[in-house]
């Protein structure tokens, strides 16, 4: 889905020069699209197939959470390996600050992976999973997306990303540190 998004946008912008803000937004929308497809493979599939009960008995909550976080993290790496080159190929950003872009990708990825893992764990046992997941994940992801797009735009302009990076790192670390602690408290309910 993420690849289709990048290719479609690249095709749609053929012959046009997209500004840096739009390019940054498209990059994060493509990554978010790709990651949202993985949510069903996280905690939801464990609950639906009944293997979550086995995990509750046989594994500590922190190791279950770490496993799911690593799964989402690996998927983010794979998606990035496909989307970032395609984005560069089709949308041709100008004078990019490679260090800035790398740092934004890292901090944004940390926040995205932590937020999706936590929200996926919360909604896995509710009655209306799909709708609730969107309702829970959207406001949690919104600040992260705003900062990631703002910082990536600055990186595409070749300027310092320090301001957005501070905020994004703070948010990402808060999600990453707080998620497992909270998860431990409700996983065995």
């Amino acid at each position, binding site marked *: 889905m993420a690849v289709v998004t990048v290719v479609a946008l690249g095709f749609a912008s053929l012959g046009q020069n997209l500004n840096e803000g739009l390019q940054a937004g498209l990059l994060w929308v493509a990554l978010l699209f790709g990651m949202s497809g993985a949510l069903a493979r996280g905690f939801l599939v464990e609950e639906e197939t009944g293997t979550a009960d086995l995990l509750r008995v046989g594994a500590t909550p922190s190791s279950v959470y770490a496993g799911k976080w690593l799964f989402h993290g690996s998927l983010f790496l794979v998606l990035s390996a496909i989307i970032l080159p395609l984005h560069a190929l089709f949308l041709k950003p100008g004078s990019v600050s490679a260090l800035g872009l790398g740092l934004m990708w890292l901090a944004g990825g940390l926040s995205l992976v932590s937020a999706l893992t936590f929200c996926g764990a919360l909604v896995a046992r509710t009655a209306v999973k799909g709708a609730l997941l969107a309702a829970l994940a959207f406001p949690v992801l919104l*600040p992260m997306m705003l900062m990631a797009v703002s910082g990536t735009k600055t990186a595409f302009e070749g300027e310092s990303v320090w301001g957005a990076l501070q905020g994004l790192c703070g948010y990402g670390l808060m999600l990453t540190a707080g998620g497992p602690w909270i998860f431990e408290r409700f996983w065995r309910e």
Partner: protein
Amino acid sequence: MNKSLLWVVGAGMIGLVALAFFWMPPAGDFVSPDSARIILFHVPAAILCVVAFLAGGWFAWRFLKRRDPMDDARSAAANEVGFLLAIITTTTGMVFAQQQWGAAWSWDPRQTSILIQLLIYAAYFALRGSLEDPRQRASFSAGYAVFAALTVPFLIFVLPRLPAIANSSLHPKDTLWTRDGLDGYYRAGLYSAFVLYGMLSFALYRMRAQIGCLEVSIRELADRFNAHHRDRVGWNLVVSDEAEPPAEGAAEKSG
């Protein structure tokens, strides 16, 4: 106590409206000088909604530690009050923005952060509504409430002050904390508003928490009654099983 507190708060709120419209002068430096009076309703609501959300997070954290359902009821009550105050903040802010800045919504960093906060807590109430089992509802929503409370200081204090974002804000900076930020009328009015809004929020929280705690007590009582009732049914069945043979024997004798 609740009733007298509500009377005091009600009378105080009428006094606050009178203070804002009949005692405080219009602010000279504003595009729309009269619109500055809204500060009495906007600023205390904005600050107290943060306090309510943090209190909600603290009760949720206490629930996760102690597993007392009353803490979950208190957390939900504090979050409901916080949500109401956030709606008042957003609405009064939009009225002021329309008058002063020419547009009700301009994606100012503070407008954006309170909107995100509203969405986060709307999701909290959606999560509470989607879980039917009271134990699960309490645990899951407490988990989310702690998480939501963690985002509050970040969204309200950190995000709007980030160097990359702060410059685009239309909100005045450090008005409350500097000596020449407000004149005597506005300072006095604002402090009174803080006290009244604090009392109003506390009264609302207390009422809602009492209802929540009452619901928990009724549920616990019902569970205990059901468990006891099940025992009684079992005992009755056993007695009737034992009681039947002599009755049959008696019937034979009589036959």
